[in-house]
């Protein structure tokens, strides 16, 4: 494949943006949607071509690279608009464009609300713009292109969350996402500046050059485990916590569900939110130098996974459950990369993209069929009414809880197992001897149980039992009060269930990408691991020495507990609600209240950060600093300058040519004096 073709991969979606934006209202939903889908599909074709080129080269071709334009040359650093596709990029490109084109297709069916008829073109423009930005983010061969993409996806996310901006709540959610992300971006930028500054004369923004520079001069960033490199990595990770919704910046993601559901599937589940993990994978050589930062990544990941899962168990909004589930799964990914299992973490990015996109699209189909009802308490028994959606959702459910043989099983178990086996010295948040990995595994293990529970709850409440719909919005939810409703939910159109089926297939077989070695599957064993080997190289921790029987035992334990949880959930929720009440007695009240109220994190931020900030801005910054000091200074300066300007005009620039000539002659005299007499 000609590397120059790489430019076309982001080029097609950009073309889509331009074409649809030019057509604007003239493009109907179907036209705009078809153009957008076709553009992303074309990118997908090129992406797979790229992937197969790299696969076919059997490691002889390290990466494809193309310089589209020499952008700017500043301070000895060349910055190009250049794209690179190494194995990591290629896989990610395929995921983004592949899942992306399915979701685009689905959206054509989903966005059929007549009220949106005049703005669907806007929707598809944003969606294509998002894919374009995302591709910049992952394909950029330097920080600048990556950062443009990084900001671009944030912008699209903001625009799409607030797509129905006439609803103030939704518009607020968009703002919240944007502001929270900005906090992270600030940290990311600080990290970049610090990195750039520390490199001094070797400064470069290009990833491959950076790797070489750090390989040759590790002392520039303080060497392995140095304070400088730790600070850089922590700041960069701070950016990742914003984009990928981790503690402490995860609060925006659940609110981001205000956007249309395909957006939640594409941006807030499958692709954009994984860019933090992608960034750490891309910079693995840097993070591998900072064990403390790695420990922080893993710990934050595990804690986020747990915290989000505890919230997910009590939510009733189907999208909220999925949102917290996403936060939780992202935590798993960070746990994986944090303990140095980059492949495992990235593997989970891929499988998660499949089943979480499927879950969201399925939920979207349900919501669509239920006429924008999102409360699970008003659902139930939908399996009979929506067979395809129901069964694909069930597949996704099995995948996410790690049912043996499904994709999520392989990726999640690999993360858990490698966490258990990780070397404490590599994850040295509290020092190299503290057995942090074992502890993190414990958290991950409990989270797996919680995951099994809340996902089972979601599926049971939505698809099993009796249909409780028909009476929107009322508190009493006796399912047996069954007046047949005029809007009986029924299966969605093929344009919507088609993508569901494809994603379901992927959710089942996605695990083939990286089968564990105890399956003895020949070439398929650890295929992804081998494929990504050139990218991760030394950064990868060596797990090969870990005992195999331990892996099987841990896996068996997880499987057993998951099975039990499903059974328990079935009993609790469907068969015998009494058990549910009895169990709730065991759980402390504050825990239940905490789960329902999302551990009051939003309230905490409101109280600890936003209120003081607003108050401080009003009372101190605005009243004193702004009004008195700055306004005073600005007005004073302005008065001074305009005074000077007037004086100049009236006193100096008097309009008499001889005055001007005198000034010229005086200047000449001064110069002559300075040059000839003075020197």
């Amino acid at each position: 494949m000609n590397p120059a073709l790489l430019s076309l991969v982001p080029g097609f979606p950009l073309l889509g943006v331009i074409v649809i934006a030019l057509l604007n209202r003239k493009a109907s939903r179907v036209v705009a949607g078809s153009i957008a889908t076709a553009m992303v599909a074309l990118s997908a074709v090129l992406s797979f071509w790229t992937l197969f080129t790299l696969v076919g080269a059997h490691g002889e071709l390290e990466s494809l690279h193309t310089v589209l334009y020499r952008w700017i040359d500043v301070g000895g650093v060349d910055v190009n608009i250049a794209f690179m596709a190494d194995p990591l990029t290629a896989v990610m490109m395929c995921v983004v464009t592949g899942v992306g084109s399915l979701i685009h297709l689905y959206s054509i069916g989903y966005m059929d609300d007549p009220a949106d008829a005049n703005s669907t073109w806007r929707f598809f423009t944003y969606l294509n713009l998002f894919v374009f930005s995302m591709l910049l983010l992952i394909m950029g061969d330097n920080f600048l292109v990556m950062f443009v993409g990084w900001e671009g996806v944030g912008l699209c996310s903001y625009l799409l969350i607030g797509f129905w901006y006439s609803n103030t709540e939704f518009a607020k959610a968009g703002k919240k996402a944007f502001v929270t992300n900005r906090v992270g971006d600030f940290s990311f930028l600080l990290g970049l500046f610090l990195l750039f500054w520390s490199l001094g004369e070797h400064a470069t923004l290009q990833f491959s050059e950076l790797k070489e520079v750090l390989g040759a001069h590790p002392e520039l960033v303080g060497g392995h485990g140095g304070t400088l490199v730790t600070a850089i990595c922590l700041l960069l990770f701070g950016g990742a916590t914003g984009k990928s919704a981790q503690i402490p910046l995860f609060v925006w993601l659940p609110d981001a569900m205000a956007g249309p559901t395909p957006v939640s599937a594409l941006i807030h589940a499958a692709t954009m939110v994984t860019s933090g993990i992608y960034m750490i994978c891309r910079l693995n050589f840097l993070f591998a130098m900072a064990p403390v930062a790695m420990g922080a990544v893993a710990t934050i990941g595990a804690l986020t996974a747990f915290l989000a899962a505890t919230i997910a168990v009590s939510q009733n909004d189907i999208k909220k459950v999925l949102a917290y589930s996403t936060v939780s799964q992202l935590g798993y990914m960070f746990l994986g990369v944090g303990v140095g299992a980059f492949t495992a973490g990235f593997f989970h990015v891929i499988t998660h993209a499949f089943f979480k996109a499927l879950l969201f699209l399925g939920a979207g189909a349900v919501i669509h069929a239920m006429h924008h009802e999102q409360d699970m308490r008003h659902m139930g028994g939908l399996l009979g009414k929506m067979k395809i959606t129901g069964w694909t959702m069930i597949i996704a459910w099995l995948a996410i809880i790690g049912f043996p043989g499904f994709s999520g099983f392989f990726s999640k178990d690999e993360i858990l197992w490698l966490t258990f086996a990780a070397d404490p010295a590599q994850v040295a948040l509290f020092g190299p001897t503290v057995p942090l990995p074992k502890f993190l595994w414990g958290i991950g293990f409990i989270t797996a149980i919680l995951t099994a529970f809340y996902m089972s709850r979601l599926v049971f409440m939505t698809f099993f039992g009796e249909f409780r719909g028909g009476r929107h919005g009322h508190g009493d939810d006796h399912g047996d009060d069954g007046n047949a409703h005029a809007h009986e939910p029924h299966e969605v159109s093929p344009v919507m269930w088609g993508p569901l089926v494809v994603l379901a297939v992927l959710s089942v077989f996605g695990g083939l990408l990286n089968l564990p070695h105890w399956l003895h599957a020949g070439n398929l064993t650890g295929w992804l691991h081998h494929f990504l080997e050139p990218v991760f190289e030394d950064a990868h921790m060596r797990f090969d020495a870990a005992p195999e029987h331990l892996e099987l035992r841990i896996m068996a334990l997880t499987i057993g507990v998951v099975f039990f949880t499903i059974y328990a959930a079935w009993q609790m929720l469907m068969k015998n609600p009494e058990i549910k009440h009895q169990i709730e007695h065991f759980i402390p009240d504050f825990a239940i209240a905490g789960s329902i109220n999302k551990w009051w994190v939003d309230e905490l931020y409101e109280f600890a950060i936003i209120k003081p900030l607003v108050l401080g801005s009003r009372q101190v910054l605005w009243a004193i600093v702004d009004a008195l000091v700055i306004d005073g200074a600005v007005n004073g300066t302005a008065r001074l300058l305009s005074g000077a300007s007037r004086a100049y005009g009236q006193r100096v620039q008097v309009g008499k040519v001889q005055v001007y000539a005198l000034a010229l002659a005086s200047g000449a005299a001064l110069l002559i004096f300075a040059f000839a007499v003075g020197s």
Partner: protein
Amino acid sequence: MFDPGELNFIGPEIAVFVFALLVLVHDVMFKQRNATISMGVSLMGLATAAVLNLLNMQAVDVPREAFAGAMAVDGFGFFLNFIVLLAAAGALLISHDFLRRIDVDVPEFNPLVLFVAFGMMLMGSANDLILLFISLEVMSLGVYVLCGINRGELASAEAALKYFVMGAFASGFLLMGIAFVYGGIGSTRISAVAQWFAIEGNGIAGNPLIGVGVALLLVGFGFKVAAAPFHMWTPDVYQGAPTPVTAFMATGVKAAAFAALSRVLLVALLGQNLEFHTALWLIAAGTILMGNIGALVQDDLKRMLAYSSIGHAGYLLMALVGAPAAGLADNPRLGGILFYLLAYTVMTVGAFAVLSFFTRDGVEDTRISRLGGLADRHPAVALALSICLLSLAGVPPTMGFVGKFYLFAAAIEGGAIGIAVVGAIGGAIGIYYYLRPIVVMYMHPEPADRVELAMNPAALGVLGVATVAVLVFGLVPGSLIEVAQDSLLSLAAWGGV
């Protein structure tokens, strides 16, 4: 000794000159001259020159001398030629409808613009102070006449007179400076001066003849580029001259004069720049401050742009303060000078194209208040003018921003932090007065006695091209910056250091 092949190197100049004669003959011969033909032939001349210049640019890799050393054939000259041709084309296109409106029907306008362009182009490549002076006079004499071309208008006459008196006065200083340099060194070759300074022990210090000569040269060029304290003619002359002529003066004359100054400073005097560092610093600082402060309270957009052009000259001088004594290769950012001259030409021509629309009964009226409500009446024009003004203010993502960025980078890399701070202050003031017309356009109501804008396709075309160029090269300046840097570095071939 004379090689006819060398005529190729002045091919663009010859083309402009010959076409100027053609236009002159046409305009004088036919009583009912056809303004469109005259304009078309003039533009053809400029286009031919541009093509020839491009061919030369590709043919000449290594800088070389021509005409027994009187002329330097290098990238610097080629780049300047393009700027001059652009400026001339812009001025001609703006003038086409404008002259008809202010009722100036003179056959000599187009040929004069071409002759002036001819002088400007020679100025950029002159390697001999004699040729430099002659071409400067060819340019200046034409511009004096152009300034006063609106014979019925007192302002135009006054502008012409002021410019002439000051110009002739400053020419005297420049000529005296050349005489002293010749007296001190025995040659008027710019490269020979550089070689003379390169000899151990030779310098400004201890050679009063040369000291006086260099000081007077600075006065002469300082006048042409409108550097303080030789700048005071600028607002009056720019305001009084007809708008297309002002556009041409602000862009072409400034670019050519700056090119000549740069060649003298960066070739002949590069090794000596420590000697006059302080003087140049003070001149640059004064130019930046006086230009920007003077512009602050102007109510006339044309006069404001005149003051701001002084400020822009200051930014360019600021970059020259950062010129490295050890050789140009030490500070490739100086290429920003050429880039900025081009950027300034493009955005200024764009702004003046809009200004040319503002006439009332054959009289110019360019008060800022006339812009009120423009955004409602002609949103595209208002947007284009806003983009040009923002570019002049140096707001990203425009060409003006990139250019200014490189000028500051050149100054800072050259260790001239202090002047960069002054430049930043000037830039901050600049943002204020550049925003004012935009505010008026978008937020103020139309003036009660509104006049229809005299929009015409030629000037609109200039405005459109300028606006697009400002944005495109603001977003992707890379290759153009490279060409500018290489062109400037071609001066290093002449250096004695």
